[in-house]
């Protein structure tokens, strides 16, 4: 079961991945955007780290929903750009989806991510194939729920979700952008990866901590 402490581990891992890949994300955005996606996400996730508090802090008495809501508010107020409202709205919906629960099971996690996707799609009005983070996110969500439905364990299902997200991100490369700044480039957006699709890959990669993986390296 996944409790608030485990959700915090996920967010710490996500902040770490964003920090490590900050320049890569910004470089992708320089090619078809305005060179700030890594900077924006890193600013936001560093601020999230700040509210997570000490790792040893036994004070984990807030509910998952409260934590997710706080994360949403931090992202909305710190990230800016397109990704701030998009990830912010996703986390707000995740908070709503987990409701009053203290502990989340595998299905709850799948529903949490699915609710996040709906929020992101409503806010940005993008769909699969528009060359945005939705291309990675939507594929990850379907892989996660179908893999769980087929009876695979969480760890295996998360691995499926991660490779689906990666595949979704790869598939943005040949597309012409229809949403976001890259859409102004028209035909010239073809041949380049969408930066937001990659930050979404890391969101799912970090989620491996739900299955007790990858929660290492805190300097």
């Amino acid at each position, binding site marked *: 079961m996944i409790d608030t402490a485990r959700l915090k581990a996920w967010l710490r891992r996500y902040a770490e991945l964003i920090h490590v890949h900050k320049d890569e994300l*910004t470089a992708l955005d*320089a090619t*078809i*955007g*305005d*060179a*700030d996606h890594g*900077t*924006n996400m890193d*600013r936001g996730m560093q601020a999230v780290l700040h509210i997570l508090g000490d790792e040893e802090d036994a004070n984990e008495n807030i509910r998952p929903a409260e934590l997710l809501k706080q994360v949403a508010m931090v992202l*909305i*107020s*710190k*990230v*800016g*750009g*397109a*990704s*701030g*409202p*998009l990830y*912010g709205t996703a986390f707000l919906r995740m908070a709503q989806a987990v409701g009053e629960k203290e502990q989340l099971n595998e299905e709850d996690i799948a529903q949490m991510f699915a609710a996040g996707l709906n929020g992101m799609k409503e*806010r*940005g009005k993008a769909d699969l194939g528009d060359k945005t983070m939705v291309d990675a996110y939507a594929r990850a969500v379907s892989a996660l729920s179908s893999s769980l439905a087929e009876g695979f364990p969480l760890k295996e299902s998360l691995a499926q979700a991660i490779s689906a997200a990666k595949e979704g991100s790869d598939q943005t490369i040949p597309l012409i952008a*229809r*949403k*976001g*700044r890259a*859409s*102004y*480039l*028209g035909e*010239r957006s073809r041949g380049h990866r969408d930066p937001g699709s990659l930050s979404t890959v890391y969101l799912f990669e970090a989620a491996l901590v739900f299955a007790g993986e990858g929660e290492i390296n805190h300097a």
Partner: protein
Amino acid sequence: MKKLINRVEDVVSESIEGLVLANPDLVRYEREPFFVYRASSQTKEKVALVSGGGSGHEPLHGGYVGYGMLDAACPGEIFTSPVPDQIVSAVKKVDHGAGVLLIVKNYTGDVMNFEMAHEILEMEGIKVERVIVSDDVAVEDSLYTTGRRGVGGTVLLEKIVGAAAEEGWDLERVKDLAERVAGRVRSMGLALSSCTVPAKGSPTFALGHDEIELGIGIHGEPGRKRIPKQPADTLTEMLTQPIIDDLALTSGDSVIALVNGMGGTPLMELYIVYRKLEQLLRERGIAIQRNLVGNYITSLEMQGVSITLLKADEEILAFWDLPVHTSALRWGM
């Protein structure tokens, strides 16, 4: 990277501090959340105008806060839209009960952040309307995309609509006028060089010595087409014709023209562009009734130019001529 900055993370705040220190009679700022507002406290009840967007476009928007134009501006990080907290706080600061018009440039990030602020303000019972400026003809407009970017037209709109608000027009009429101006203004720009975002430290795109990027926006984002360098007259025509076509300007029409430098263009060159623009329009029987030539909406140190034409009428010209007193635009007082 060589820039007149201290720490990268202080660029925006130190620049606004400087703006406020240089114009203490005009503007003040609040730090948390960050926004700029008029120094003179409002004596009359008027509709307030609040805009904002990424920084790096100076004097937009902070330079346009003052009498006859904006009541407050929310600067985001460089080329990144402001966040809802800033917009909500700025609106609350300058709303005096007559309502607030939000002026938003059409970029996904700006639109979504202003939309979230709008939702929060409405929940709190504050009267808010929103106008979206999307004047860049370089971008093809289509139902399936984000639509055109907001560029130079924003400056003209803020001036004209600011005058109407100062005249005591109510929120509905101010909004209608803003929509009307937004519907009649078009722009197009080009770059001779890219710009360097401080946090990145290197130019956003690489441009060869004899290459020009046509159809750029104001964020150092690449344009639609790369072309070999050409004389200024040819380039001016390449920017002007699509605007004339899009606005369907014909003989007898009047316009307000803005020849805008992107931050690193000598004024000397901007006048060479204006010279040709004036000739092109004159040949077609289109009269430039008013003009601005200079750096009004920039892209850091980018070398380049944009042309904006607003199809004018009596009412628009009358508002244009009314007094304005901001740090970047001032006449009549």
